[in-house]
């Protein structure tokens, strides 16, 4: 996905680069637990599995996947906490 949509205001950035699956997902889950409804969380991951694992989890958990953005050597997954 390319960065064509307006970037929302990020409430919290979780830098999980260098961490391997399921590390980035677990970091996001912790941030979701700690955050408030409406928070927009951004997870940086250099693990290729995160690109698919995190969106699947976000769908099951009922949150909003704003996007997966390719950056220089890592992905930024942006998620809005909905409940």
């Amino acid at each position, binding site marked *: 996905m390319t960065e064509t949509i307006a970037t929302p205001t990020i409430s919290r950035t979780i830098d999980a680069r260098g961490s391997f699956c*399921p590390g980035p997902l*677990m970091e996001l889950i912790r941030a979701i637990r700690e955050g408030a409804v409406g928070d927009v969380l951004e997870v940086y991951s250099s693990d290729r599995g995160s690109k698919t694992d995190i969106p699947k*989890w976000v769908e099951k958990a009922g949150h909003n996947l704003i996007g997966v953005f390719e950056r220089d050597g890592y992905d930024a997954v942006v998620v809005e906490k909905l409940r």
Partner: protein
Amino acid sequence: MDRIVILGGGVGGTLVANLLVKKLRRRMDRGEATITIVDASGEHTYQPGFMYIAMGGERAEHLKRPERSLLDKRVTLVVGEVEKVEEETRLVRLAGGEVVGYDHLVIASGSRILPEEIEHFEQEAHHFYSAEAARRLRTALDGFKGGRIVIGIASMPYKCPPAPLEVAFLIESELRERGLRDKTEMHFCSPIGRAFTIESVSEMATPILEQKGIELHTFVNVEAIDPERKVVLSLEGEEFPYDLLILVPPHKGAQFVIDSGLAPAPGGWLPTDRHTLQVGGRPNVYALGDATDLPLSKAGSTAHFEAPVVAERIAATVEGRTVAKKHGSYEGKVMCFFEIGDGKGTLLQFDYDHPPKPPRPNQLWHLGKIVFNKTYWHTVPKGRV
């Protein structure tokens, strides 16, 4: 004088101490180097045996030995709880006020279980991460007459990643033998999108779950336990009713590593170089075993294969030489047996670059695990294997 201090007398700490003695014996005998282990209990526990208290007639007293009995006589054992590491002064402060100075520090402080982090866990859920909890689970299984068993993992990371699947497989076998399988629904809940973190192991285990009629639920991160309704609630919004609940409790690193600023809260896992095992770029501080943040199994096997690297690197520094090629760098080697039930097992052997290719389950790997468990005391801590 080189003072080497090792925090923790588990697999990693004990093995590093004994391997260092082999390398530095002459210097130690000349009074040029000392090795001290600081351990909270002074007892060495073979934790993989806990599961067999619940599942295989093992007894808690067989799983403990005095740490002193496993150490070379040249190693000093200090029994005390570490409160803080002061890096500026190179001091380890113990709860009783005692202070131990170091030049080289090895942190082998393992992980802690924290069932209390989930409300009602201790009243409602069983686990097998202590001898006492495993005994309680055995009693619950003995009294089980059929119903709904839910096996899950409260949060990651946790010790011995295959253990919850092994327990599911072993309980399923047991219930079949006891004629209770038809009266029992079994559910296995995984916090991630598959049965196991490593894809190849997941691919091996998922068909076995299916064949044994154990329903797999993915992306289940335990949020709460409702003791009135006997239901586990997940963060993802699902509910799992249970008659018997078995949950891996939350795990964290040692509190003192957080308090000393060596590892970030809340997890307390030490930021560890994947090859040198140095902590946060510090040249004289190493970590191994459960205490690290490495993307590997938190298991005795990991510590077992990391220990020679820590010992070699410290010995090279003490002796003022370059690190030997053999054991100079940790490549992520882990090897562990995996119980499948019905007297069968398989083997997980892998490193950073080579995922496991588990062989077809057979009786040999199950027997291998039993033999390893029985011979552990004479082999691993003393560096014989």
